[in-house]
């Protein structure tokens, strides 16, 4: 089983290396197949590990394997260590499974791209990095995986590197992630200094006198999670990251990388549980993000940006769950969200692909008439997102809302926010669907797509079909409180703090579904039947369109001072002092060389005179010394 786990981890890396070494000698198609096969192999290995683990008793389900001792300093040991336990296997399955589907989809989507091989190499690298992150057996390896996924994200967002907006978005993502990396590293340093082992699962039993320490550590970890998962205040990079190709948005910025923050909190829950204020902060940030993102999604006009803000919002739900201690629920929502969010992105990708790269929904309309399969897929994805039974989102989202209900007055606030979020989700999701799909095809659409033309290559449509099926049945795997295999699978690793009662479950589900349907109804009235008009509240509209002015605030607070400082330094220090001194040294040498060369007059007699004079002097010296 351990071997299977290693195979799962290493296969995508091998594919990435192979693709890098093959370079241009592999055909573009072959590159796609290599990457897809590798990720599929990884998935199979993950399944094998899962089967083996399942056959064991719950108490035994934790195996670690260290490849070699990497760092030893006194009593501090860090090794290249992977951990196979229910949580990591869960994530392995999600990452490799969804990864496989999306990489297969990319074969069709990226067909004909000039640098297709580079894309697949990066995708394989990303899958490896994410697997490293989830399989990490200690915090250092986790940080390595963390950094690598950040790198892969940067490389893939900026894939079309001759487009300045893409490059800028990649930089923004990387820098904001780096802030999170820094806080995490500081947390690790504190832990190391305290003498804690960084290995999972020998976890962090910090003594009672160390309250401030564990709070700081938890804050550091939370900082990293917030950066990676694009929650307030480090959320501005995610919408910009849509500059990357659509499969990238699906895999990295919906299904897997952005959920790494949630995984981190669940994995290190022992630390967080000793810092309950920080947990509450996490839940609060999640709730705030949930609301804000849903509001912004109401006014977005780019199809991918709507889905991106939806992702941000749904991860807010996961943060609420993790912050409340409902770890199993958070992970379950992570899984179902991966299904339907990937589905939405890939279906959107089908539309974009058919419309030759257009992403502005104002130009689209009536796409459903000419692309019925895509319309169905998107509809199912949207229903799953809103949480309409029996689709996937219903089962997972409602549990979170129920968990909120079970946790006192703070939980009640979160409960209310989550319900408002459910309503807004209905509105924005179906706003998107109703603008793009039903009705008569718009002129732009007619120009590009013909009826009965096939909607996309097989690689694209088949993977979307698989995801559609998963979005339909994927939620059925757990239906609290009737049956809960996911929770029982994960509970030994992360015992939940919030277990709602059946009444709370029922209440939560009822309200959530009702509000969701109400949201759909509102959207229908405005965009479907066109009976109501969008309320024109100029101020709030501006606020939403500027994404609550976060970008402007950061620009003012951080970017401008940094640029001013850099310019000042350049003008007052770099050019005169450093550049000037180098120039001085160089010209000084030149001057010396020119002066010295004047000795070479070319006149033989002068030279001979110098020799004779030297001879005379030396003779005296010799005689005197003797």
């Amino acid at each position, binding site marked *: 089983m351990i071997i299977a786990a290693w195979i799962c981890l290493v296969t995508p890396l091998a594919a990435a290396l192979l693709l890098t070494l093959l370079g241009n000698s592999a055909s573009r198609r072959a590159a796609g197949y290599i990457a897809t096969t590798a990720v599929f192999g990884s998935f199979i290995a993950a399944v094998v590990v899962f089967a083996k683990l399942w056959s064991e008793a719950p108490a035994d389900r934790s195996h670690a394997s260290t490849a070699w001792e990497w760092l030893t300093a006194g009593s501090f040991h860090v090794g290249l260590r992977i951990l196979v336990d229910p949580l990591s296997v869960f994530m392995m399955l999600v990452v490799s499974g969804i990864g496989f589907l999306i990489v297969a989809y990319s074969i069709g989507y990226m067909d004909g791209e000039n640098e297709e091989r580079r894309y697949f190499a990066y995708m394989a690298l990303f899958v490896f990095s994410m697997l490293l992150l989830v399989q990490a057996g200690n915090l250092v390896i986790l940080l390595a995986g963390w950094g690598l996924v950040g790198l892969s994200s940067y490389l893939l967002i900026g894939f079309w590197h001759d487009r300045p907006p893409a490059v800028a978005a990649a930089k923004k993502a990387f820098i904001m992630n780096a802030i999170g990396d820094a806080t995490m590293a500081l947390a690790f340093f504190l832990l190391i200094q305290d003498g804690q082992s960084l290995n999972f699962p020998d976890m962090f039993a910090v003594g009672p006198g160390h309250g401030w320490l564990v709070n700081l550590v938890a804050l550091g970890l939370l900082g990293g999670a917030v950066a990676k998962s694009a929650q307030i205040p480090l959320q501005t990079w995610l919408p910009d990251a849509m500059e990357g190709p659509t499969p990238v948005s699906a895999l990295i910025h919906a299904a897997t990388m952005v959920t790494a923050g949630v995984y981190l909190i669940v994995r290190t829950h022992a630390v967080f549980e000793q810092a309950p204020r920080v947990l509450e902060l996490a839940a609060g940030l999640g709730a705030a993000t949930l609301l804000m993102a849903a509001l912004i999604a109401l006014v977005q006009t780019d199809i991918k940006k709507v889905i991106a803000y939806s992702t941000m919002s749904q991860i807010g739900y996961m943060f609420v769950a993790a912050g409340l201690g409902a770890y199993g629920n958070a992970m379950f929502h992570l899984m179902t969200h991966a299904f339907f969010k990937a589905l939405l992105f890939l279906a959107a990708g089908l539309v974009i692909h058919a419309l030759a790269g257009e992403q502005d929904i104002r130009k689209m309309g009536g796409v459903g008439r000419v692309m019925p399969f895509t319309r169905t897929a998107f509809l199912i994805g949207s229903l799953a997102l809103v949480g309409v039974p029996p689709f996937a989102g219903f089962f997972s989202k409602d549990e979170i809302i129920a968990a909120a209900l079970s946790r006192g007055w703070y939980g009640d606030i979160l409960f209310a926010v989550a319900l408002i979020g459910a309503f807004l989700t209905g509105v924005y999701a179906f706003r998107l669907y109703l603008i793009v799909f039903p009705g008569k095809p718009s002129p732009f659409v007619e120009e590009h797509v013909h009826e009965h033309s096939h909607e996309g290559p097989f690689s694209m449509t088949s993977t979307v079909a698989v995801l559609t099926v998963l979005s339909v049945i994927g939620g059925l795997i757990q239906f609290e409180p009737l049956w809960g295999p996911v929770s029982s699978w994960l509970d030994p690793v992360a015992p939940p703090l919030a277990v709602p009662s059946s009444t709370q479950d029922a209440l939560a589900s009822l309200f959530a579904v009702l509000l969701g349907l109400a949201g759909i109804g509102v959207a229908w009235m405005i965009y479907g039947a066109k009976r109501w008009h969008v309320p024109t509240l100029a101020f709030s509209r501006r606020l939403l369109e500027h994404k609550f002015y976060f970008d402007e605030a950061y620009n003012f607070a951080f970017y401008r001072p940094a640029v001013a400082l850099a310019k000042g330094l350049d003008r007052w220090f770099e050019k005169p002092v450093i550049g000037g001194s180098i120039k001085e040294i160089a010209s000084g040498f030149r001057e010396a060389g020119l002066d010295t060369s004047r000795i070479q007059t070319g006149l033989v007699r002068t030279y001979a*005179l110098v020799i*004779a*004079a030297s*001879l*005379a002097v030396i*003779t*005296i010296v010799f*005689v005197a010394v003797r």
Partner: protein
Amino acid sequence: MGNVVVWIVWIVAAFSCLASGVAVISFTNPFFSALALIGNLASLAVLYLLLSAEFVAAGQVLVYAGAVMVMFLFVTAYLGGRADAPWAGGPTWQQFGAVLAAGAILVEVIVVIGLKAGGRLSHEAKIDSGFGSPRRIGEVFLTDHLLAFEITSIVLLVAAVGAVILGAHSRRRPDTIGEQIHEGEVHARP
């Protein structure tokens, strides 16, 4: 009696040596300078004989005066013996410095001879009659100083090759730098 003769021969030879040396550097006409040098070499040969170096003296006359100087005279004749004023040209500081340097060297050597090595220079070693003979020279050349012998032959070979090359080039491309200088394209800096 023999000592007096030796002294007289020595004085004459030394004097002509020095005089011809001065003459070499004083004459305007290189032809006369070359002839003066021949005189110098001949007086040196006499001095060598006084020092019991017969073979070297013979070699001096045959090789140096006979071959080398003849070659000199040939070249001088070929070049036309251009006249050139002895003390002309060059900055005065150079001439002054030259005299000073040469004078300094001379004075130093004399002083050294006079002061330092005075005692030791009086006791000449006893030599046998074979000293300086061709036989003795031959023996030493081919036993103790074989390497010098061989290397000398290589040096001569190299010189011969060099001379041939220099001669060959001069026939193939006659007017290159010279023409360019005369036409003012390349300037010679004084």
